[in-house]
């Protein structure tokens, strides 16, 4: 049986602060005395969709080792998706601090006195991407914590948490902090960046992990001059040389790390030389760590320890006979370095959010007055990419200004902000390819 969260936190002094948030703190003592509520059986799988990091931490420590499974679902998922995921993953209990889930119980109803922890709880993560129902990827705490350094360091690292903790990147930051005796400081995500940075500064944040898009934004906020960071981590998007250089100049005493991570593989690797891309020597090292291979300019990863990821409910994952998984990320090799180019599918990464242009096309195609539509990506030095929609009106005499407003209104009502096109261009024709499909190039 593997070591659960409760056991892993047991060696830390009771008064140690695990989480600092604007609405309060959470100490070790507060989490160690609880288990699941008495009416949650030990063979239950529990869907957890909690935004508050203190509450989420309490629930995860209470459940891990005491129930069969924990499925983490972003609080940004609509209620019908949450219900569907619960069904697919066979979760009979939903715990949430949101008020739009009819069948959910709140955190108080989910926690009870401590009880035996005699199970290895399965942790199920969801893949990011705005396609509708996310894919489910089974893990264990061990597989999730694999790249976490657990040695306790002094002074205590204070990790800024600017991700949603229910997502892979956020959980990585949380586990890194919790398991190395650190403190998580969690600004309110819906506040201005300046205000969030002020909170990080006041909380004594020393370690911060964010997307390149968010780092650029932090660099443009004067408050960030007051941050004194020892660790600067970038992930979730391609880190270009400009943002790496700017961070190295702004935080000269920080270790600068950019990580590549795949929810599917449950792992990734870190690059620490401050240069974009990664050295090919990483792909040659065949230690017990993550296996890295480049095949047809695409990155394949092999998780260590024979861990074979799969999607629940028969969803496909491309994995070869040696256990390497196709990440779908394309690379360009130049000299002794590989640089990320983007995805081999049509997925576009807009500010760390994966967007499928086809889905945006479907939404726009349904708007009255739209004849044809093609959604393409344009490179952006701020968010990596932006979406441009090219629209052929259904008839020549339509008022395009009005049509544009209708399209924007529909997109804003039905799509994530990142999936809403930055620009709508009206055109007379669209290129079609040999298969008769609208060409995105």
């Amino acid at each position, binding site marked *: 049986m593997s070591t659960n969260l409760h056991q892993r936190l047991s060696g830390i002094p009771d008064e140690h602060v695990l989480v600092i948030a604007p609405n309060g703190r959470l100490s070790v003592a507060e989490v160690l005395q609880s288990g699941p509520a008495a009416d949650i059986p030990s063979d239950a799988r529990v869907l957890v969709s909690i935004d508050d990091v203190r509450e989420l931490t309490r629930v995860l420590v209470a459940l891990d080792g005491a129930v069969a499974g924990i499925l983490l679902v972003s609080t940004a998922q609509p209620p019908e998706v949450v219900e569907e995921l619960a069904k697919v993953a066979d979760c009979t209990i939903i715990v949430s601090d949101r008020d739009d889930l009819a069948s959910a119980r709140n955190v108080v109803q989910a926690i009870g006195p401590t009880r035996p922890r005699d199970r290895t709880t399965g942790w199920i993560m969801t893949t990011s991407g705005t396609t509708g129902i996310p894919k489910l990827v089974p893990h264990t705490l061990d597989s999730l914590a694999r790249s976490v350094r657990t040695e306790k360091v002094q002074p205590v690292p204070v990790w800024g948490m600017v991700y949603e903790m229910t997502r892979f990147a956020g959980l990585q930051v949380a586990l890194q902090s919790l398991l190395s005796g650190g403190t998580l400081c969690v600004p309110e995500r819906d506040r201005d960046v300046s205000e969030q940075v002020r909170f990080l500064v006041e909380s004594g944040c020393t370690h911060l992990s964010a997307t390149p898009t968010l780092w650029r934004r932090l660099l*443009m906020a004067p408050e960030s001059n007051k941050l004194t960071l020892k660790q600067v981590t970038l992930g979730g998007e391609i880190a270009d040389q400009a943002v790496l250089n700017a961070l190295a100049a702004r935080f000269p005493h920080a270790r600068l790390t950019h990580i590549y991570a795949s929810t599917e593989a449950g792992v990734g690797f870190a690059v620490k030389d401050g240069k974009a891309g990664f050295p090919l020597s990483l792909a040659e090292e065949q230690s017990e760590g993550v296996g890295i291979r480049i095949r047809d300019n695409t990155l394949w990863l092999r998780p260590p320890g024979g861990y074979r990821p799969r999607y629940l409910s028969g969803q496909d994952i491309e994995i070869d006979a040696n256990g390497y998984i196709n990440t779908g990320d394309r690379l360009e090799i130049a000299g002794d370095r590989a640089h990320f180019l983007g995805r081999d599918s049509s997925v576009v990464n807009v500010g760390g959010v994966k967007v499928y242009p086809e889905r945006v096309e479907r939404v726009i195609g349904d708007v009255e007055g739209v004849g044809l539509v093609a959604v393409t990506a344009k490179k952006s*030095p701020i968010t990596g990419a932006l979406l441009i929609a090219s629209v052929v009106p259904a008839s020549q005499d339509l008022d395009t200004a009005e049509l544009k407003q209708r399209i924007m209104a529909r997109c804003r009502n039905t799509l994530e902000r990142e999936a809403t096109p930055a620009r709508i261009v009206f055109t007379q024709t669209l290129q079609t390819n040999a298969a008769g499909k609208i060409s995105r190039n």
Partner: protein
Amino acid sequence: MTESLEPEIRRAFKEVWQSENESDAPELQPDTVLLDTGLDSLGFAIFVSQLEDELGFDPFTLSTDAYYPQTFAEFVAFYEKFRSHAA
């Protein structure tokens, strides 16, 4: 001596800000921090993209310095520095 890019940048900012926020854009002072005006990263990316379409260049892509301007005055100066690329 060519004209300042400031009026053009001011106009583009107003247009993008209003389209993103569906209300009136705030007045920009030289020391206004652009990201404190209510324009988020995506809005800022759209603003830079629109300026590229209108001015014909994007200093963020052209610049080899690691530099991200914070105030409106710094932003305009950043564009002025690279305007010779607008050919």
